[in-house]
């Protein structure tokens, strides 16, 4: 029988952090406390506000169906903004991703330019884009659609590029070994392999766009958001409740459809 007796000590379950890691943790906690304090975080104020919240709900219910036809039209417009903006943005993001993905196409200068464009599109909030496009093309859903398109181009551009960088290089190399042009290998080997990621990212962008298009209405960029703002400003809480329920229903439908499609795509269909 072999002797299984250990002579070395049993290792500790948890190791003490290094001094540097300890400072980093402490700094992280300090920033969190500072942020909570700076934003006036107060449980007592939250408790004080609860009756007002209860008052809102009591006045909002039952929701008013009086303006349902016009609200439905605004909801459809919101959906159209999301669909059109996401599609246009996703299409714009494909060339941006091709040029910004490492090791795909273009010179270093073009790569930097493409990556910079994607970064600008992504870092500027959609609400700011909406304000800019309202100035450019006036109030209405077109401004909102443009804002969603730019925001989606930034969102998808980054994730499409990452998906293209992550695909198996073998198929592209096999084609290149036979003298196939780089642009052909991208469209034949890289993009088809990255297509599940493209589709799932676009679906996430669509869900994001539906939520965004509600907010964009608040700055006059079309959709049901404007109706919600008017209802809240007029203290017409029953109508506001109807709008909130309509938005909730639309978001849930889009998310369920997205989940179903994503599952089908990831299962290989």
């Amino acid at each position: 029988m072999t002797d299984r007796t250990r002579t070395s000590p049993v290792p500790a379950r948890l190791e003490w952090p290094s001094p540097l890691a300890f400072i980093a943790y402490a700094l992280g906690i300090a920033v969190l406390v500072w942020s909570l304090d700076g934003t006036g975080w107060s449980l007592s104020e939250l408790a004080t506000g609860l009756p007002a919240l209860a008052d809102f709900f009591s006045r909002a219910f039952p929701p008013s169906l009086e303006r349902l036809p016009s609200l439905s039209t605004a909801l459809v417009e919101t959906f159209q903004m999301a669909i059109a903006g996401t599609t246009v943005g996703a299409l714009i993001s494909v060339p941006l991703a091709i040029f910004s993905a490492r090791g795909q196409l273009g010179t270093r200068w073009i790569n930097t330019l493409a990556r910079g464009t994607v970064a600008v599109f992504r870092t500027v909030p959609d609400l700011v884009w909406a304000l800019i496009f309202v100035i450019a093309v006036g109030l209405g859903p077109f401004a909102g659609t443009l804002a969603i398109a730019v925001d989606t181009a930034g969102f998808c551009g980054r994730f499409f590029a990452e998906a293209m960088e992550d695909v198996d290089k073998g198929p592209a190399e096999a084609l290149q070994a036979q003298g196939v042009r780089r642009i052909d290998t991208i469209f034949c080997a890289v993009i088809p392999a990255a297509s599940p990621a493209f589709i799932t990212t676009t679906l996430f962008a669509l869900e994001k766009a539906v939520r965004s298009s509600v907010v964009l209405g608040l700055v006059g960029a079309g959709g049901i958001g404007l109706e919600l703002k008017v209802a809240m400003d007029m203290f017409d809480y029953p109508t506001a409740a109807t709008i909130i329920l309509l938005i909730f229903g639309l978001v849930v439908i889009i998310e369920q459809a997205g989940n179903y499609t994503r599952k089908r795509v990831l299962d290989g269909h």
Partner: protein
Amino acid sequence: MTVAAVRLAEFEPVAPRTVDLAVDGLAACYAKRDPVFSGVSFTVGRGEAVALVGANGAGKSTLLKCLMGFVSPADGKVSIFGRDLSSLKSGELRQLRSGVGFVAQKHNLVPRLTALSNVVHGMLATSSGPRNWLQALAPAESRRCALAALDRVGLADFALRRVDSLSGGQSQRVAIARALVAEPRLVLADEPAASLDPTAGEEVMEVFARVVRDTGATLIFTTHNLGHALAHAERIVGLRGGKLALDAHTRGMVAARLRGLYD
């Protein structure tokens, strides 16, 4: 007896033919490490089938990458169809590669596409553009050629099957069809049967060697399977310890005598 001695004493020397590939004093190394191999010289004649053998790390795959222009040699030169690869600009190299078919150890097919689309991609070197990106868009001639290539490897009935639903052997045969669809003059293969079970490996090598032979193309393939080398190559080029240790005809050669390459 050493492999070098075997080469000189027992095997039939290589007779000259029209040269498709010439390797002259080739050396390759990665980063600033010791060379993977050095001083490697051999030629391959038109229509010849050559097996490149050697132990793991001997430099077979690196040599193949040098032949494709993917790895720049540290010394020496490679000429394909009489053109020195080091003197070619990228466009010229691509043009030259359009006369070369390549089969990798892993089939390297695009998984979500059909077998026919993957084979149509093999036409892109000679016919670039969106029409050959998918079989559904491809010109009738491309589709006909691709289907004929699939037929030659016995997979015409699987043309519209997604390649991720095919077995390993079938996938490798699709890769062979893709490599041969544009009728290359030179076919390079990096252990084309290594990822398959012995039966599928035999089938794939049989189909591969036959189809290449039928097209009259020159074939260079690496393998660890000495049976495949002896059965499907006219010549064996062996690497050992970073040097060319063997270059001889397979006629009369037996696998046991090549073990020295793996010592």
